[in-house]
């Protein structure tokens, strides 16, 4: 093996074709309201954890819906379950319920 002093970067692309969407579909089926998210960011703006860490609930659940599960469970552990996001969501999504659901479904990731 030759050491070239660099390696081949892994793609950052969200590859919908090769992502396993089974868990994502299960989550959406159980709580279809998650699909109603319009990405307004109210949840993240008001998030207790998100103001002190890089936790971003909107981003995490969007990635989960695209089949990007890596790290989602650990990220959601940062949620303090204070419930403020649910109060501010203009689409009436039970965000706290979503946090719990994703954690339950993605315990293995």
């Amino acid at each position: 093996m030759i050491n070239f002093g660099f390696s081949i970067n892994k793609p950052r692309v969200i590859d919908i074709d090769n992502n396993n969407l089974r868990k994502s579909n299960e989550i959406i089926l159980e709580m279809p309201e998650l699909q109603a998210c319009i990405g307004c960011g109210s949840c993240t703006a008001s998030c207790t954890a998100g103001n002190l860490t890089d936790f971003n609930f909107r981003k995490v659940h969007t990635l989960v819906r695209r089949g990007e599960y890596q790290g989602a469970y650990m990220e959601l552990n940062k949620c303090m379950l204070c419930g403020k996001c649910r109060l501010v969501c203009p689409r009436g999504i039970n965000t706290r319920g979503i946090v719990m659901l994703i954690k339950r479904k993605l315990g293995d990731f």
Partner: protein
Amino acid sequence: MKHIVIIGGGIAGMQCAVELSSLGISATVIEKEHATGGKLASWHRLFPSFTPAEDVLGELRLKFAKAANISLRCGVTATEITPRKVTLSTGDELECDAVVLATGFTLFDARIKEEYGYGIYDNVVTSADLEDMFNRGEIVLKNGNKPRRIALLHCVGSRDEKVCQRHCSKVCCVTGVKQAIELKEMFPTADVFNFYMDIRMFGPGYEEMYREAQVKHNVHFVRGRISEVSPTIDGRLQLKAEDTLTGRPLKMSVDMLVLLVGMRANEENAELAARYGLQCQESGFMKPQDNFMHNVESNVEGIFYAGTITSPKSVGETLNEATTVALRIKDWLQKQ
């Protein structure tokens, strides 16, 4: 009896003639095609209520046929327009008291956005093609199969400096959501994705339909514009976009791509402006006197505008505006 010449036999022209008739003013409608109805004649269903376009057009045609003092000239164009006289391509001259320009819009030619491969790759269709497929009752791929994954791309030929169409075509967002629901109803197990820059749900029931598409029909919405379409080895289409809400590039393959083509101004608008002293907007659509109290009057006395000649509009808005034109004309004639 006062007489008005209306150029364009789409829904704006027809509705305007019907309303003028009820106000005791006669009208002649000039239509370049061989039948009335304009672009609506080839549409399948209308947002947000999924009303068959045929129902709306059927009722309008019936009123048009029954109304007194309306004459229709199909298959002809106007070669010279003045507020008091319109010359036709047949050489006929029509005396009148005012003219209504209701020549509508042009659908954006999706071939211009080369990166989407319309006309090059199979199964890249426009929203208008899709309505046509709905009318024929069959949505099939080139190979005869049913689509299992479909993407709809918003803003094709709208809000795009690269193709000189800076304006928002307004109706495509709603059409995209409507068509996504219709596709889901036809193919419940298919995945349907909408790629959008902004979703503009400006009318009554539109936002509700959007939410229904998301929650009830599980239509996926990705905020990001598709930048490139290429073929895959199995005859599908690979799309590249950014999922801007996660800040990551995204790629996927689909069986069918629907391009939501925008409404652009007719090429002839510039000529109308140059020949008759009218004014165009930056978008190429005709410019009314103002956007409020004189929004259907041109800057030339006796020449009025109805419908999408001045800007993209929905069917409902167009019908409303055509009614307004009739009332304003009556007002204007009385002041003469």
